């Protein structure tokens, strides 16, 4: 508690203040985050930054209703004012003493492998890595015109306390490297961005990471220049293993977040316990993968990170819950209560969302079974309309499939579908699951780091943008 200048008596007093108007729950979220970035541009690491974000958010619940306030100062007077503001969600006047005792919880998870603390590592030690990325990319392809490489890291020290007297702590590292490359060939310009992100220590900035980033940057450059827009329309889509997990994130993940279902808005709101895709398909949201960008020892409500089967053998078996929705549905929270920072109240959010491998062979087998369609393997972003279930995702690269073979490269097309229909239209699942470790960030009201994964799958019918 020294980090935040607060003691146990004060914690209990803050909860008592929060509950003073009749609230049913109060929790405190203390955060001390440092963020650092270094940018290589025009072959030099000539800019960078260092940022501090410090404060405490106080939430009071009255049933399912939320009162929230925060303070950037953790002096007791400021926090009492914040607790009083949050307590306004309730309208009574009661005498509350706060939790009688403090119970320090220890997480069953160890999600953040860490050898070197980012904060103890000299920023200058990362400069050679950024320079090597550019050198290796330029050495391998003469079409390279510009390279920008950015390393960023953050460490968040988090302390949570709630009206049950539970005290939890988490120290969350997150390192990311992204590389943007501009290629020039015959008067044409194309760009490519690749990234990797892990919840681990500074040891991630290793040669193996450089090799991965360089190799991903250089993969498919010829096709990028050859690619054309396909003729658009409704067709079969083979989604390559890895980043295709964006399909799950958009087509169903959001619609499974229980706040949308509690409010009756989700297209899946009345489908619990019902079959929503083929037998054998299992879809998971997992907060326990070591080092994964979406993992957490605790979520931001002090609930241990968990592995949650949303779909088991094709049947919808769980929504993704925070404490509010879990209470509403009479179930246990699933560790999905997440927030961007102490400035936001937690809401149900995904972590690492993926489908387990299937038994329908390889990606080549899936492609061989398609007479006309597209194969897609790199993506930029996606979006969904929760009520309608209509989702889209933007494809950076792929190929046309003609008579079971990959033919013309395609790029920069959007694909649109409907969540329940797309899930029902998954007709084959290969046995090649890959979790994608790019810098995926979900933007539902607040930005939180997530990841996604997928084995190669065949979707019978989606609408593909084109000319």
């Amino acid at each position, binding site marked *: 508690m020294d980090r935040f200048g607060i003691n146990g008596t004060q914690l209990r007093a803050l909860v008592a203040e929060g509950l003073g108007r009749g609230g049913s729950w109060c929790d405190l979220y203390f955060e001390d985050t440092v963020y*650092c970035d270094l940018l290589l541009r025009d072959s030099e*690491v*000539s*800019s*960078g*930054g*260092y*940022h*501090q974000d*410090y404060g405490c958010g106080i939430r009071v619940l009255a049933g*399912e*209703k*939320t*009162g*929230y*306030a925060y303070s*950037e100062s953790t002096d007791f007077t400021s926090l009492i004012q914040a607790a009083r503001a*949050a307590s*306004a*969600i309730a309208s009574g006047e009661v005498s509350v003493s706060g939790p009688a005792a403090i119970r320090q919880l220890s997480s069953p998870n160890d999600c953040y492998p860490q050898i070197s603390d980012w904060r103890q590592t000299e*920023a200058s030690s990362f*400069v050679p890595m950024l320079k090597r990325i550019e050198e290796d990319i330029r050495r391998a392809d003469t079409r390279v*015109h*510009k390279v920008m490489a950015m390393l960023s890291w953050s460490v968040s020290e988090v302390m949570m306390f709630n009206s049950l007297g539970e005290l939890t702590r988490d120290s969350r590292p997150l390192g990311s490297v992204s590389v*943007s490359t*501009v290629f*020039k060939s015959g008067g044409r*310009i194309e*760009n490519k961005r690749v990234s990797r992100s892990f919840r681990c220590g500074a040891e991630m900035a290793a040669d193996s990471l450089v090799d991965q980033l360089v190799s991903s940057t250089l993969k498919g450059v010829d096709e990028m220049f050859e690619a054309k*827009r396909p*003729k658009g*329309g*409704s067709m079969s889509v083979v989604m390559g293993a890895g980043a295709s997990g964006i399909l799950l994130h*958009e087509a169903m993940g959001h619609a499974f977040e229980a706040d949308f279902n509690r*409010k009756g*808005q989700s*297209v899946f709101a009345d489908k619990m316990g019902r079959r929503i895709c083929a037998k054998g398909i299992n879809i998971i949201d997992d907060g326990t993968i070591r080092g994964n960008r979406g993992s957490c020892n605790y979520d931001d409500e002090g609930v241990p990170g968990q592995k949650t089967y949303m779909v088991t053998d094709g049947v919808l078996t769980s929504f993704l819950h925070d404490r509010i929705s879990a209470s509403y549905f009479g179930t246990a929270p699933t560790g999905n209560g997440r927030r961007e920072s102490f*400035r936001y109240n937690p809401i149900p959010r995904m972590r690492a969302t993926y489908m387990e491998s299937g038994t329908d062979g390889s990606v080549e087998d899936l492609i061989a079974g398609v007479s006309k369609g597209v194969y897609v393997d790199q993506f930029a*972003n996606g*979006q*969904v*309309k*929760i*009520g*309608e*279930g*209509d*989702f*889209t*995702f*933007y494809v950076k690269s792929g190929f046309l499939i003609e008579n079971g073979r990959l033919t013309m490269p395609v790029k*920069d097309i*959007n*694909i*649109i579908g*409907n969540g329940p229909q797309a899930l029902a239209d998954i007709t084959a699942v290969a046995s090649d699951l890959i979790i994608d470790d790019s810098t995926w960030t979900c933007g539902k009201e607040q930005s939180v780091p997530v990841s996604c994964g997928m084995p190669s799958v065949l979707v019978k019918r989606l*609408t593909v*943008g*084109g*000319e």
Partner: protein
Amino acid sequence: MEDSIRLVQDAIGYALEAGARKVRVTLNRSVENLVATLNGEIDKVTHCEDRSLSFAIFADGRYGSFSTDKLDTRSLKTFLEKAVGIVKMMAPDECRNLPSPERCCTSATTGNELDLTDATFEDISPEMRRRIALDAAIFGKVGEEGFKLISEEGEYSDSRYQTVIMDSQGLKCLHTEDNFDYGVEVTIEADGDKYSGWWWNSSSRLLGLNAAECGREAVRRAASQIGSSPIKSVRTNMVIDSDVASKVVSPILNALNAYSIQQNNSFLNDSLGKAIFGEGLTIIDLPHIPGQTCSKLFDSEGVATYEAPIIEKGVVRQYFVNSYMSAKLGIAPTVEDATRPKVMPWPEKGLTRQDILARCSEGILVTEFNGGNSNSSTGDFSYGVEGFEFRNGRIVRPVSGMLVTGNFITLWNRLIAAGDDARPCMSKLIPTLAFADVDFSG
């Protein structure tokens, strides 16, 4: 404001003491109160106060950017010693510098020059906020013909933002802006299918906020989509509703940013002074309209903003060039970005959406984009869309689940009309737009 100015002055002094040769300090301070409703009942109340300092530090020919919300003297001094240490490990970059004082804004001395504050702001009580939010809610108050209102989420907020920018060359700029917002999202159900709709309003004056009509408009938009489906892939006219038309304007403004130009990652590279777009496209930056949201006298470097054409009759007139990019590219600096760009009416003033539909006769009216993206190097784009098919200037059916695909330069060379109906509460003043020969996939 005086305590804010003193804090920034002190911070400049601490940075120079720590070894900075030059420094720019920005204080951002805000207070926001929010009341959200769910189905006509209060669902959430929040109170937020923020105060943070951002630093651009120049030392030994090197540069770094920093921020902190730990503002006590001891923490600030420790932070700035660390910051200057980080700057000194960067590679030298002679292009980094503060903007020359002659370009900087000298007229933002009170923060209220643009009349963006409401004198009643501090008198708004928690009860008033609850009343506004509850009065605006329509759950259980509207007729439901052919559908059921499943949920209504409304959100009222009022906020005050203050910015103070000062630098070690004597720059001092102040800006204060109030915002009153109400937004609503509804979900309705008809024939077993769900449809969603949204609407919002915003003003720098509480009295200027029209919250009352938002719920009904959101329901109307959702109900108008009942029975929507894709139509066959087609090449036809596209009319884009003014509320969402920034989707085809923002990528152009982004492509004019000197950071993209310098990295050769812009489809508008080497376009300055050239007729790239059709003569119908004129975009003017109007940063100084009093009382209008997002008007501002200076950019984030403290450089004075000014009214100027960005694109004039299809000719690119301006890149957005800050001090750094000016030195990198060897071209004259301008401002960092468009402040309040307006797409001018064409071919004549006064066209409404209905006028434009009649002029186009047939095509697809886009009222909402669903995802998609564009390629910054080539200008190729592909977006999900929904809206309506129209014939003989009249809407005939709702459409959804479709995609529009093309290239921005090609698209803007096929401009049929730009209306005169931009909503003044938006930061970009984009009217209804119409384009010919656009590819839709369904």
